[in-house]
């Protein structure tokens, strides 16, 4: 009897050690010095704002890896991280080792240069002043559009719940605010207060704020609100995969967001330079631009946009330039009107 108990105990100890050993082996496996692929790949560390995750990881990175391999015989590995544009910018300021980043709005690039992370206006040296692609801001309504949403004005009606990303951390949210304000002023040009009135109406109806455009979409999908204000790309990409259980509503006037590439020179070793420059140039190549278009982004090259029949018509598209660029728009509209007036008036 005692012998048997001893055996059982031994077995238990062995099985525990076996489990721990197996887990340990599993954990260290990729780092064991086993004879495998000898040449270590070169690395690009990429930070992107939230909605870029899918197109970069699954389309642009693999395409560049192939192109670069054909050109040089070198394998490239991408280490990437995606979050709200403001979050990424804060991480870059804190010193994450990124080589290249794509921000949702130029304002974040300006914050980086103010913090000394990149040289001022360095992104203007890139093609299209650093803008790699665009996408208009649109409204996503529940299936069948039960609230009869037609335009931004509809979102100001009583009883409509709006899911909006948080302008503190989300670049998309800043674009959305300009889109809402701009739609008001452009639709009623004779009324100087129209933009602010529309903003106030919509923000009275905001029921949930998420840290990023992506997170806002997740909230909406989980049943919050009647309408989501987001990038057209998000909705189109879902629809093309048959995953959009909602309806896209195109406002008559809306903004085309422009996404800015920044190269963090201080993190790039001299021997990495050619690789990073090659990758940055590749972002504006026809191949990469086509991949963006395929996945719902509008190319900076208008010709390519014909390839995606899903792009909806917008009667009166506008750009941030129409409001004097981001520095002015942030000061006058986001801070001056939305933050200091509208938020206080709706009591948030």
């Amino acid at each position, binding site marked *: 009897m005692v012998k048997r108990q001893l055996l059982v105990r031994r077995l238990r100890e062995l099985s525990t050690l076996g489990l721990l050993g197996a887990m340990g082996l599993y954990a260290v496996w990729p780092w064991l010095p086993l004879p495998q692929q000898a040449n270590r790949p070169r690395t690009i560390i990429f930070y992107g704002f939230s909605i870029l995750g*899918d197109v970069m990881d699954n389309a642009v990175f693999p395409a560049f890896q192939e192109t670069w391999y054909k050109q040089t015989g070198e394998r490239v590995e991408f280490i990437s991280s995606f979050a709200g544009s403001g979050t990424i910018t804060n991480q870059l300021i804190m010193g994450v080792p990124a080589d290249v980043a794509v921000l949702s709005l130029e304002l974040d690039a300006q914050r980086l240069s103010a913090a000394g992370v990149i040289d001022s206006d360095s992104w203007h040296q890139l093609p299209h002043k650093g803008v790699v692609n665009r996408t208009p801001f649109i409204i996503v309504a529940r299936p069948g559009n039960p609230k009869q949403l037609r335009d931004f004005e509809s979102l100001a009606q009583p009883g409509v719940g709006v899911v909006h990303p948080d302008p503190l951390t989300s670049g998309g949210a800043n674009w959305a605010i300009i889109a809402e304000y701009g739609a008001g002023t452009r639709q009623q040009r004779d009324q100087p207060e129209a933009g602010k009135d529309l903003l106030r109406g919509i923000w009275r109806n905001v029921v949930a704020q998420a840290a990023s455009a992506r997170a806002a979409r997740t909230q909406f999908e989980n049943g919050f609100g009647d309408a989501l204000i987001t990038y057209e790309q998000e909705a189109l990409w879902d629809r093309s995969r048959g995953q959009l259980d909602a309806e896209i509503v195109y406002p008559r006037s809306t903004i085309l967001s422009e996404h800015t590439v920044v190269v963090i020179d201080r993190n790039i070793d001299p021997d990495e330079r050619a690789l990073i420059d090659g990758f940055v140039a590749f972002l504006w190549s026809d191949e990469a631009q086509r991949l963006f278009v395929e996945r719902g982004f509008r190319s900076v090259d208008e010709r390519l946009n014909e390839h995606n029949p899903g792009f909806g018509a917008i009667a009166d598209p506008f750009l941030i330039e129409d409001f004097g660029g981001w520095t002015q728009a942030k000061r006058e509209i986001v801070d001056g009107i939305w933050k200091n007036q509208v938020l206080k008036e709706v009591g948030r």
Partner: protein
Amino acid sequence: MRAVALETPRRRSERSAALIPVSMLVLVLLPLLLLPLAAVFIFAFRGGVSAFVNALRTPDAQFALRFSLLVAFATAVINAILGTFAAYVLSKYRFPGERPLGIVVNLPVAIPTVVVGTSLLLLWGPIGLLGRWLEPWGLQPMFTPVGVLLAHLFVTFPYMLGTLKPLLDELETTYEEAAYTIGANRWQTFRYVLLPALRGGLFTGALLTFAHSLGEFGATVLVSGNLRLRTQTAPLYIFAQFEAGNIATANAIAAVLAILSFLIFFFLLRYTGKPNERRH
């Protein structure tokens, strides 16, 4: 085995008496604990078993799981040693400032983990107090696995200490005194008298540390830079997938973490547990 051997009428009545409180406990735990756990598994398998397996097979998911396990092992080992040492010193030595020190070492459980992450960044980060002097030397712990380990060591430090110190405090000093009288030094006394008595506590403490490290999120998300294939732990991966709307993928990894934690607890508790029954 034991239960069958001891089946007596008294046992049986004890068992029926347990029925009501046990079912009440289960009823209370159902919405609090059991259903949320079940939801993870239901969503993980909603796309079918093949979708579940595919979600686990991506390089990102594999890396995140491996990295989390490694960090948790390292954290458990290092804090087991540090925690034992701290418990020994705090329990066996009397010195001025003992009480404040005892409180400070327990603080990490009370501080929000996000604050831990921020303070580590502001200390060791490239623009941090110490970090800016390290930067020119090419030493940069933040946004690397070392940074993640530092955060986990900080956050889980009190668990080892918290399990061992009460044991050490309550241990009869007569054994120790006996050891000293026959000429054992402090190390020998610790190694041959105290350590065997602490064995159960050591396991429990290391286990708690391991489990907390496996699930740590708040501090890790800040100090890691959330880089896939480099510093992204399993909880960060889960959150990234959830944010991106890939709820099934997120839950697949969550389910694996839950199963791993269950297995670890199950085996280690069986291994260490019920010392009374075994020793008699």
